[in-house]
């Protein structure tokens, strides 16, 4: 499939936005400026970018504990995202969610999630609402390889298929469930083998190739909107940093060589090389994107640092929604 320069540059921009956001978050964490846990998406940028470029603002996504990339790709803004990571009141979640629960319903991002596999049933619920309203909207659930071992995923996949809901299941197979390699936790190599068990098509794509992912996502979306139900996309990818934090080398559970091999396949740099080779864009074009977005990140960090922390009287705010007109 051929894509216009606009589409290609848009996907590139999404990937660079994720990379810069994540690198900045990592540095801030190292400087002890981010409370709590941090799971970085560096290395996997092509997956969120290729899928979200196929979605509209109305389409919903659910995410994982490694969720910043999904929100950035879906159109999340740096300032309220960075403020949320710094637990400031100007954050998307007013400092009550943080990295693991970051969300923005305005762009259809129904939350990162601290519970592995928990996003899938929620995406199915959003998909149900879309079918119910026949509104031409789809939902996509991002999850890791490890997620497919938890019951919630199985229930969600089966229900979505049984009810023929417009849902995209996007598996980011980065080969590790936290610190344990995939081959210790499942007897199959390809997650996509599971799709047949639910009665949906499954496709393996190179998770380091944003164009391949985008194509697969468009196909899955087409199928969903045609009323043919869900699809499973397995993107073979890799996280360059550790399960949490920024360390990537010298760890016991995977070799430095393995990390280096995958880094050679960096989704952004390989994409740039291909585009330059094809004459679609120049080095300068890409450098300009990086420079512009670096400035945005610096501004966002400043915004977050200058923002106030939440007032303590906010503890009890937003535990419950008001119900206007309720009997009293």
């Amino acid at each position: 499939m051929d894509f216009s320069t606009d589409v290609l540059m848009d996907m590139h921009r999404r990937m660079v936005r994720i990379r810069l956001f994540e690198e900045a978050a990592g540095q801030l964490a190292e400087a002890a400026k981010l409370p709590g846990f941090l799971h970085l998406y560096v290395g996997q940028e092509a997956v969120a970018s290729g899928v979200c470029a196929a979605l509209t603002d109305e389409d919903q996504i659910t995410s994982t504990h490694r969720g910043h990339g999904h929100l950035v790709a879906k159109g999340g803004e740096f300032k309220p995202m960075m403020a949320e990571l710094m637990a400031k009141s100007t954050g998307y979640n007013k400092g009550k969610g943080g990295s693991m629960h970051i969300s923005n319903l305005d762009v259809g991002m129904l939350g990162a999630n601290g519970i592995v596999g928990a996003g899938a049933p929620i995406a199915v619920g959003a998909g149900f609402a879309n079918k119910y309203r026949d509104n031409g909207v789809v939902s996509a659930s991002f999850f890791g390889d490890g997620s497919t071992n938890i019951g919630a995923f199985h229930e969600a996949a089966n229900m979505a298929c049984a009810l023929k809901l417009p849902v995209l299941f996007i598996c980011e197979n980065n080969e590790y469930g936290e610190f344990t390699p995939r081959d210790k936790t499942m007897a199959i190599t390809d997650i996509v083998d599971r799709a047949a068990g639910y009665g949906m098509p499954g496709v393996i794509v190179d998770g380091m190739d944003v164009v391949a992912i985008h194509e697969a996502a468009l196909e899955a979306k087409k199928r969903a909107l045609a009323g043919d139900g869900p699809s499973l996309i397995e993107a073979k990818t890799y996280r360059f940093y550790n399960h949490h934090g920024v360390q990537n080398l010298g760890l016991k559970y995977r070799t430095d060589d393995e990390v280096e091999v995958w880094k050679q396949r960096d989704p952004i740099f390989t994409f740039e090389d291909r585009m330059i080779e094809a004459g679609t864009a120049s080095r300068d074009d890409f450098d300009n994107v990086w420079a512009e977005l670096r400035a945005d990140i610096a501004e966002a960090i400043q915004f977050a640092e200058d923002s106030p922390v939440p007032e303590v009287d906010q503890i009890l705010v937003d535990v419950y929604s008001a119900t206007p007109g309720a009997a009293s």
Partner: protein
Amino acid sequence: MTRKIGYVQAFNEAVRQEMAANEDVFCAGEDIGAFGGVFQSYAGLQKEFGERRVVDTPISEQAIIGLGVGAAVAGLRPIVDIMFMDFIAVAFDQIINQAAKVKYMFGGSATVPMTITTGGGGGLSAAAQHSQSLEALICHIPGLKVVYPSNPYDMKGLMTSCIRENNPTIMIKHKRLLGMQGEVPEEPYAIPLGKANVLREGTDVTIVSWAKMANDCVDVADKLASEGISVEVIDPRTMQPLDTETIIESVKKTNRVIVVHEAVRFAGLGAEVAAQIQEEAFDYLDAPVGRVAAPFSPVPFSPVLEAHYQPSPEKITDAVRSVLARPGA
């Protein structure tokens, strides 16, 4: 206009009327469609509203609750059914970590107007996995509202409120009350969540109890009245939020109180009620707050054992006499 209908019909009527009034309301759960649900709570609804709005789901409690959470965040008003309350354990992540917390975690931006309906309570020899009253577990979770009606009138009004409520609400139907008859208005009405009902007024002792036990307590109170003992019975109806104010007002009047519930005594809601009473009305108490509840064991299958397991009229009567035996101030 009012007429006599059953507890489960009152539930069904609330759902039917709210579905008719609001296109965003739909129901999903196991066997609720053509079959009408194992307790017939959803009888006739699929015929009336179609398969689009009354959905038979796989036996997948996590996905059933997740279906509700996702659809609610996306703007619908789901009613999702978990057949037996015991099965909420299967879906605890979606209830506790997702439904209850989405609004707060998202900084208030999400609304989760969903109702989880389920059947609770024992007395049917349904044994340890189909008989529990687990209201204390879910009342412990900020973000949830919990309702456990004791009669058909309350059922209809409270279920109507649950459906209209903008928060995840758990409506527990007591299995031994399904056939209970009572006067219920035909037209829709809503009973506020978080407001107790004084089932019977009295001056000597307060009993706080809910669901089936509340009715048993009224029977006990009626019997004790013939001995000149005046018992007030308060049914909180909503366990979360709990109408502490009505309970405290009553204790200030009677100075003696017992709490009666089907759930096990240890860390049951009786403990919370007792704690709040001593915090708010310590000086008014003439006796320690009494508790009548189940012993610390799973619900036994044997009818003989289960009858002994549940709070009985005799145990409730003894507890009333016990708090009355203390000399007053």
